[in-house]
């Protein structure tokens, strides 16, 4: 029963997407959105039912192969499902956000000529994401991994006539591919060590792998497991946009806003975090890999947050915020607090989707204006959007009581109690990050919704219901979802059948009793106060004395420039690396292929033969007796050879 239902969860969005894609153009918009929304709704309901079933039956792990994909000798590769608490909760999150985005898109994409294409894509994306989440083996993980990448590629380039959009989607795909390559290599390494791609086999042979060495040179070797984990994390760095592979995510904001909410905030980018949690049996065995994860995550958390301070595009600010929050999740995984990481993933999915959709609502209301310098004072014109944005922002900065508070606090608590190498560094990074988060979040909020209302925005109205409704629906979990769930998910054994991690006492140094107690406990830490001070500074900078930021920018010009240029990563990739490789290709082609092989070797041989034959032509006098003489010469030589042979044989 569970098996059939799980397959149904997977297949229904696929069918919906295919139907919308093939029939949407002819059957019209209503058909398209009905089909896709109902398929995702069905998927959501079934996922919820599965989660419910699993909650009622603790320790139920459901692991079954659907079919055998490939079988070579003793190796077999399967397509299968693994349903446990981790998967089930991810499924619910994914389908819920997807459902919201579907509904939202009815209004947002209403006038777009690519309406059916859009719905088809997001349904297919849902399918891909689900297949990633539900995989019971690395092969399917990789399939989902790449498939979500492709859907993201197509959706970023959804408005394909925009030069910037197709540039962004190309960039996104290539950078993701860099990560995917590492992931594939990690998978290949695990395969070569354990001989299988199934999670269960690989995980059970983890301790055995841990003892093996991978020889880089004759003498230099690393632990094979550490290498595999770092390679796997390389994949996560691409997909979850960690430094230095983060550059594609801000650019991906070229896509429609619902996409930014669904793919580039809530689901796809968290795939890396999900994978880290899924691979926890391996990562737990390698301290060095965890440190690596921790360092990368904390660098990402702090640096990308700073970038959010200087952006003027409403979506880019949120995108950098997403990057920073992803950094937090990775940090949590780095200190082995996978449950906290996943919990933050879940709450973040809700409030970040909310923020994006709210931003989309603003964008729609202002007729596709995205520059925050042209906004201001929209509070009165867009009351629902404002309220929901406020909720999202408060959740994001971890204001006490909101869902983000619980997740972020648990996470920072875990960092504080960690003993992994570089944990102090990570701790300071995340603390500064909290301040930066609230600063840029409220900067955005204040600039967009407060301040004076500009002239041309006077007639702005709240958009239609299908846009507003998801905002309201999403703000509910953004506030409340953590209250009942923080206990079981973070501190209790909810994930114990799918994740290997130390006990909550070891991790957090705190005995959880109930959520209210946790709230009061957290208030004793510095985090909340740092966040509130961030609000204060933002209030000072952007409402009381708006000239301060400009002054600061002038005073610290080099730093400001560094931030505006995004630490020159784009410059490095586009102008140095990409140029280098394309000119390398060009010169290999021109020098290697054309000049050397074709002109020198191939045609050179031909030319040589031609010149030789020109010389040989001099021998060709045209006189018969010259030819006859040559024949004579040949005959005499031949006879001589015969004689020599004869004599040789005789002796």
């Amino acid at each position: 029963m569970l098996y059939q239902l799980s397959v149904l969860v997977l297949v229904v969005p696929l069918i919906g997407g295919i139907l919308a894609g093939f029939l949407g153009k002819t059957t019209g918009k209503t058909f398209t959105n009905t089909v896709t929304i109902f398929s995702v709704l069905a998927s959501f309901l079934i996922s919820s039912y599965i989660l419910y079933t699993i909650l009622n039956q603790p320790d139920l792990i459901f692991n079954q192969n659907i079919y055998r994909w490939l079988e070579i000798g003793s190796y077999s590769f399967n397509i299968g499902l693994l349903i446990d608490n981790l998967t089930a909760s991810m499924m619910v999150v994914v389908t819920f956000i997807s459902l919201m985005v579907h509904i939202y898109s009815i209004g947002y994409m209403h006038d777009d000529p690519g309406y059916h294409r859009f719905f088809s894509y997001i349904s297919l994306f849902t399918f891909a994401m689900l297949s990633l989440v539900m995989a019971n083996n690395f092969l399917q993980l990789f399939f989902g991994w790449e498939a979500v990448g492709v859907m993201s590629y197509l959706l970023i380039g959804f408005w394909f006539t925009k030069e910037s959009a197709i540039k962004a989607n190309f960039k996104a795909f290539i950078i993701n591919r860099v990560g995917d390559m590492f992931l594939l290599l990690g998978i290949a390494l695990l395969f070569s060590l354990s001989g299988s791609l199934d999670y269960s086999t690989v995980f059970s042979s983890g301790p055995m792998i841990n003892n093996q060495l991978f020889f880089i040179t004759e003498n230099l070797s690393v632990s094979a497991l550490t290498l595999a984990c770092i390679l796997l994390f390389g994949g996560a760095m691409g997909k979850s946009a960690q430094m230095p592979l983060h550059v594609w995510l801000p650019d991906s904001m070229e896509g429609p806003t619902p996409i930014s909410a669904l793919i580039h905030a809530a689901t796809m980018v968290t795939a890396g975090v999900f994978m880290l949690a899924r691979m926890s049996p391996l990562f737990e065995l390698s301290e060095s890999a965890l440190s690596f994860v921790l360092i990368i995550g904390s660098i990402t958390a702090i640096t990308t947050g700073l970038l959010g301070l200087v952006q003027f595009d409403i979506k880019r600010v949120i995108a950098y915020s997403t990057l920073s929050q992803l950094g937090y999740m990775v940090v949590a995984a780095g200190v082995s607090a996978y449950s906290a990481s996943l919990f933050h993933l879940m709450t973040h999915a809700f409030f970040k989707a909310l923020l994006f959709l709210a931003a989309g609502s603003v964008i729609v209301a202002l007729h596709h204006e995205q520059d925050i310098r042209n906004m201001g004072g929209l509070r009165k014109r867009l009351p629902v959007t404002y309220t929901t944005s406020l909720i999202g922002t408060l959740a994001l900065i971890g204001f006490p009581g909101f869902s983000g508070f619980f997740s972020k606090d648990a996470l920072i608590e875990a960092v504080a109690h960690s003993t992994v190498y570089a944990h102090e560094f990570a701790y300071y990074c995340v603390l500064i990050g909290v301040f930066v988060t609230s600063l840029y979040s409220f900067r955005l909020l204040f600039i967009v919704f407060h301040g004076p209302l500009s002239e041309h925005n006077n007639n702005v109205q709240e958009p239609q219901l299908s846009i507003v409704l998801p905002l309201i629906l999403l703000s509910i979990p953004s506030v409340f979802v953590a209250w009942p769930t923080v206990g079981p998910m973070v501190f209790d054994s909810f994930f114990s059948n799918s994740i290997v991690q130390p006990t909550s006492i070891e991790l957090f140094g705190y005995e959880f009793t109930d959520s209210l107690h946790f709230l009061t406990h957290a208030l004793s830490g510095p985090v909340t106060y740092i966040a509130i001070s961030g609000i204060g500074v933002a209030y000072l900078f952007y409402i009381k004395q708006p000239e301060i930021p400009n002054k600061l920018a002038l005073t610290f010009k080099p730093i400001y420039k560094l931030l505006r240029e995004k630490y020159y990563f784009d410059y490095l990739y586009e102008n140095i690396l990409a140029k280098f490789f394309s000119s390398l290709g060009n010169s290999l082609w021109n020098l290697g292929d054309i000049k050397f092989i074709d002109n020198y070797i191939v045609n050179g041989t031909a030319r040589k033969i031609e010149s030789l034959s020109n010389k040989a032509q001099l021998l060709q006098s045209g006189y018969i007796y010259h030819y006859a003489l040559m024949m004579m010469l040949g005959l005499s030589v031949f006879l001589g050879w015969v004689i020599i042979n004869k004599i040789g044989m005789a002796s």
Partner: protein
Amino acid sequence: MLTLQSYLTLGAIIFSIGVIGIVINRKNIIIIMMCIELLLIAVNFNFIAFSYFNQDLAGQIFVFFILTVAAAEAAIGLAILVALYRNKKTIDVQELNSLRN
């Protein structure tokens, strides 16, 4: 004692004379054709000698055919020669070098 070797040697000598004749000649193609006849005679010598000493008639049969073909060859060759002379007004090998280019 007449042995096979003596006949073969004779054939070899005649053959070489024919070959030399083809090459050293600068007068006309007719002489070359005659030299070819000499070559054939030399070859025929060998055939007949082998046929005699091995008591195998096949050699003679072969000579018979060679003679036939040689006659045909001579006829055609001379016909070509006549045609050539008509066109070029010469059969001098020194002047016949249209094989070049």
